[in-house]
């Protein structure tokens, strides 16, 4: 394997990894605050893809407006999901919330299936994101540069919000002890809604970039990326934002590089991802960046 081939694979791996990472951040934030695995998170990727698609194709908005609309609407749907499905069972055992999350996921998928239909639709890619640069033998798709840049910027913004702002402080406090925080006069529901909105908007950005990279949108397109992002979040240490991004990158790189080196395994890419997760859970249950569990 020569150096050009290896660099090329690393670029592909990083691109996929960033997309997993963006989704994983949303997973991890909701988990951090509510201790809930929001299985509907992957489907928000599908929602944002369809919103952007209809924005461009049916209403013929310019793409920046369609993408911004996709982020806002997806964020709003995130809040709706929390208010409609998770808030009424906030005090119930955690397993009820988990099953509700799976229910919401099915609801979104089948709603899209009924309303839009099951045949894949082509996503119109704006000119700005098309084409690729050639550096020697290595091809650098313009979209990969965008994906890397957008992910880095969004990660910075999320970290700044969590660590530097009052609402971020409330989020961090909430993840420690919800009851005490509510006693301190903080509007818990507002903070949770904000978390959902932020996480869903990240999923929306991930979704729009995902369907520019793989331009076939269909109701079940969010399932596999959602699962992969979940693996990435666990890998990085669930509840930790930087960990989720790193987990995503590791997962993306591992998937691409293993298949590039060992093409016979190319049918088992998903298996590779889940084997990595099992291995991490066995050796380091709290993930790469996770805190040590108290004995």
């Amino acid at each position, binding site marked *: 394997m020569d150096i050009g081939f290896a660099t090329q694979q690393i670029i592909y791996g990083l691109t996929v990894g960033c997309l997993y990472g963006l989704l994983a951040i949303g997973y991890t934030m909701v988990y951090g605050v509510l201790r809930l695995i929001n299985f509907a998170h992957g489907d928000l990727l599908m929602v944002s893809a369809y919103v952007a698609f209809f924005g461009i194709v049916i209403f013929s908005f310019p793409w920046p407006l369609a993408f911004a609309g996709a982020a806002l609407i997806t964020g709003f749907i995130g809040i709706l999901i929390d208010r409609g499905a998770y808030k009424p069972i906030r005090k119930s055992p955690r397993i009820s919330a988990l099953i509700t999350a799976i229910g919401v996921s099915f609801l979104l998928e089948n709603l899209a299936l009924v309303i839009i*239909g099951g*045949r*894949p639709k082509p996503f119109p890619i704006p000119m700005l994101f098309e084409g690729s640069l050639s550096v020697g033998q290595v*091809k650098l798709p313009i979209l990969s540069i965008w994906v890397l840049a957008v992910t880095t910027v969004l990660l910075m913004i999320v970290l700044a919000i969590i660590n530097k702002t009052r609402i971020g402080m409330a989020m961090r406090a909430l993840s420690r002890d919800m009851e005490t925080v509510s006693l301190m006069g903080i509007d818990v529901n507002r903070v949770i809604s904000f978390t959902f909105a932020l996480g869903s908007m990240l999923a929306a950005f991930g979704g729009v970039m995902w369907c520019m990279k793989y331009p076939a949108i269909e109701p079940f397109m969010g399932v596999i990326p959602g699962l992969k992002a979940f693996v990435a979040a666990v890998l990085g240490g669930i509840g930790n934002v930087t960990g989720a991004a790193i987990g995503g990158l590791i997962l993306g790189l591992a998937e691409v590089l293993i298949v590039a080196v060992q*093409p016979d395994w*190319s049918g088992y890419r998903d298996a590779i991802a889940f084997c990595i997760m099992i291995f991490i859970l066995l050796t380091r249950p709290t993930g790469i960046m996770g805190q040590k569990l108290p004995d």
Partner: protein
Amino acid sequence: MVRIVSFSLTLLALMFSLASASDPINVGALLPMTGSVAAFGQMGWDGFQTARKIQPQALGRPVELKLSDTKSDKVDSANAMSRLIEREKVVAVLGEMISGDTIAASDYSERAKIPMISPTATNPIVTQGKKFVFRVCFIDPEQGRVGARLAIDNLKAKTAAIIYDISQDYCVGLKTFFQREFTQSGGKIVSETMFKTGDRDFTPQLSRIKSLNPDVIYAPIYYTECALIAKQAREMGLTAPILAGDGVQAPELMQLGGKDVEGLYFTAHFHEDMVETPIAKKFLELFRKETGKELDSYSAQAADAYFLLIDAINRAGSADPQKIRDAIVETKDFNGVTGKITMKPDGNAIKAMVVNKVKDGKFAYVTTIMP
């Protein structure tokens, strides 16, 4: 007294015959209306409905189509089949469109002794050892052979790379038959890479293929994945021609693949330009009027499955599944939309094969190959 009795008997008989005349014959339509091959299911449904407009009756009774969605999934396909047989009480089933789902569903119909006719399931296993499973299409050993000949004779290929879907019986089977013919004719398979239905990223597989620089890429897969593979291949500068099977003939191939699927060759069941016979012309006209679409292989094959079944029910003179089955086997030189169909005792049909090509964003007809 005798007169009154005979009169009331006649009346009774008349009422009985009227009742049975209006009694519909239930036929199942087992189709993937959603999921990874939803296009095939919806094209098939268009075909069934248009065909039913032409022949709405069998034995003087209306034919009712009961649609059941298989979600392009093997387990759901088997469930949908049991629903058709147990609840809808169908006397025969038309479908499924793809091999994996047909195999999964056929176990049930075989045990229940309900005849089923698949319009387009091409894997040889579909009908193997089964008495009640039929199809109106060619089978994959033929298709793989024609594909390999096409690669060697028309595309002048000496080396080929194969990329296929390991979770679909159709893909695995067709890949094997292509490989056999290609290597026997002196060609060399330089790489075999695989993926799973629903995968969207093929860059590692394609980088591998690019580094081996084959003369042709054989992709015996379905339309969504094929379009994305073509896109990603061209993006990374992999320019080898792509050759595919009948599984790519859906409008989605061009919608998703755009200019990157231009020049893609594939073996197929049918092309609109083949239409010659009066029944085919009549069907084509009605199909265009009803749906506003061009007639594709899947709709045409579905129509033939429907017409063949109605013909068999009429010849059987009864809606009894066993009798319908016996009539289907005896089908000889049946004039369908896609050409003449003769059923062999093993449940397979003798059918011609077509080579198509993507040209200017449309499927263009290249040639017909007789078996």
